[in-house]
């Protein structure tokens, strides 16, 4: 089993996977509790536009994906707060719009190929040294911000209005949270893939909620599930030559079913 770590790409993949697992579980918990899970799908599709641009430009797509996801997140928040549109409609519009744009860019460049496939569903073979550096830098920034503001974000998730009247800068923190989530999603596409990252953000928390604990314990359980899924998923990706995003998400699904059965009420 451990012989997979004789390959450098596997070590890089595992390091990248662990960074993603931690970030996705923690930031995902706030998103799930705010009933905002679908933003992960939308931002993932927006990141795909960045990937498409990166693929045809022949540069590392990770940076461009981060920028595309951030622009998308800010557009969503701008539309939501300034035009009084329903959140889910805004998400649907930006999701389809991003996908259409990505498909056109890819078609024009005639770039439907295996590297694109790996961005859609993840690949343990694809994590480069540069990716790992980009992920570590953004990962540390995102984790630090979550660490600083997690109490405020928790208060807002529970009771936005009272948080506002107690003097917490709710609008600023909402903006910060979607920005962090956008960055995490863009970073995850190497390992999990754009089409599957949503599950990675949402399932660990939803499964952890079944155990009916306080917030601190719920996050801890989500973190354990997330790490477990990444380790099991990436190992099976290696042994069975399957896309890592798919094996990780299927592992998460088993964890979810397990937590449903264990906590039947």
């Amino acid at each position, binding site marked *: 089993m451990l012989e997979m770590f004789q390959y450098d790409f596997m070590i890089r993949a595992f390091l990248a996977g662990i960074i993603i697992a931690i970030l996705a579980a923690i930031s995902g918990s706030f998103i799930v509790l705010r009933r905002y899970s679908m933003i992960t799908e939308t931002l993932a599709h927006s990141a795909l536009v960045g990937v498409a641009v990166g693929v045809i430009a022949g540069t590392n797509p990770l940076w461009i994906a981060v920028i595309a996801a951030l622009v998308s997140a800010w557009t969503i928040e701008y539309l939501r707060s300034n035009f009084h549109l329903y959140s889910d409609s805004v998400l649907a519009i930006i999701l389809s719009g991003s996908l259409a744009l990505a498909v056109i860019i890819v078609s024009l460049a005639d770039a439907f190929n295996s590297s694109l496939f790996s961005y859609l569903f993840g690949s343990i073979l694809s994590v480069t040294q540069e990716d790992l550096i980009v992920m570590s830098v953004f990962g540390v920034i995102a984790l630090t911000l979550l660490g600083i*503001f997690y109490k405020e974000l*928790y208060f807002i998730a*529970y009771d936005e*209005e009272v948080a506002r*009247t107690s*003097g917490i800068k709710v609008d600023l923190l909402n903006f910060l949270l979607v920005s962090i989530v956008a960055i995490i999603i863009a970073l995850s596409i190497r390992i999990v893939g754009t089409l599957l990252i949503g599950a990675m953000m949402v399932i660990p928390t939803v499964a952890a*909620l079944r155990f009916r604990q*306080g917030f601190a314990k719920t996050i801890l359980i989500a973190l354990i599930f997330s790490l477990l899924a990444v380790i099991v998923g990436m190992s099976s990706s290696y042994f069975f030559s399957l896309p890592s995003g798919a094996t990780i998400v299927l592992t998460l699904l088993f964890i979810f079913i397990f937590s449903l059965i264990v906590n039947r009420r």
Partner: protein
Amino acid sequence: MSMTFISPIFEVKNLSFTANEQKILEDISLTILPGDYCAIIGPNGGGKTTLIRLLLGLEKPTQGRIELFGQKLSRFKRWYKVGYVPQRASQLDQNFPATVLEVVKMGRIAQQGLFSRATQADNDAINEAMVKMDVLDIQHKLVGELSGGQRQRVMIARALASKPEVLILDEPNTGVDVISQKRFYKLLKELNEEENMTIIFITHDIGVIADDIGRLFTVNQTLLTCNNPKEAISCDDMSALYGIDAHLIHNHHHH
């Protein structure tokens, strides 16, 4: 410490609020002083909740101005001085992962520095609020598992954790049994009398009002006020309240 004059907690002048071209509140002026024990009553849709939301800065007035602790509301920063218990307190998501302790701690967050951990003062305030509201024994329970009365006390404990000088409650008794309600009003009165905390709440329990309310604000788009609640209940206000004979009784406040 001697004070030669008392500065008001809230000073509201000619406040109007319009939403979707519909007048919700019109020309409301009132002054609330430290230690006041105020009830706001009025028919549904009469603008009670809107008035409270305006006082809390959750809505922006169409006209008029509000001062809080002598400062324009838009510039007010010391929000820890104001505790708020919303109407939905008893109806929040039952599955939300939060223990009683975690919820009460929220009341302290805005005061803590961004990088600093909870200080002794924070922990003391949290503990004191839980003792006062009698939720110390259930501090590790999930809020979703509590009764309506218990949950209400937790929400008030959260508001008290910031050591506010004024406590604002919107129909705090929604979904709470009668025994808990009585206990609750006793607690409010104690906070008011023993700690000189200013209390402002919206209620439907007219019986409670008549007993020991200091000041009564009757709101139905405009302010129909009697300072003596017993008179308010017996006088024309009740008919005015329900729109039969609406004449205004202006709250006499200093100019």
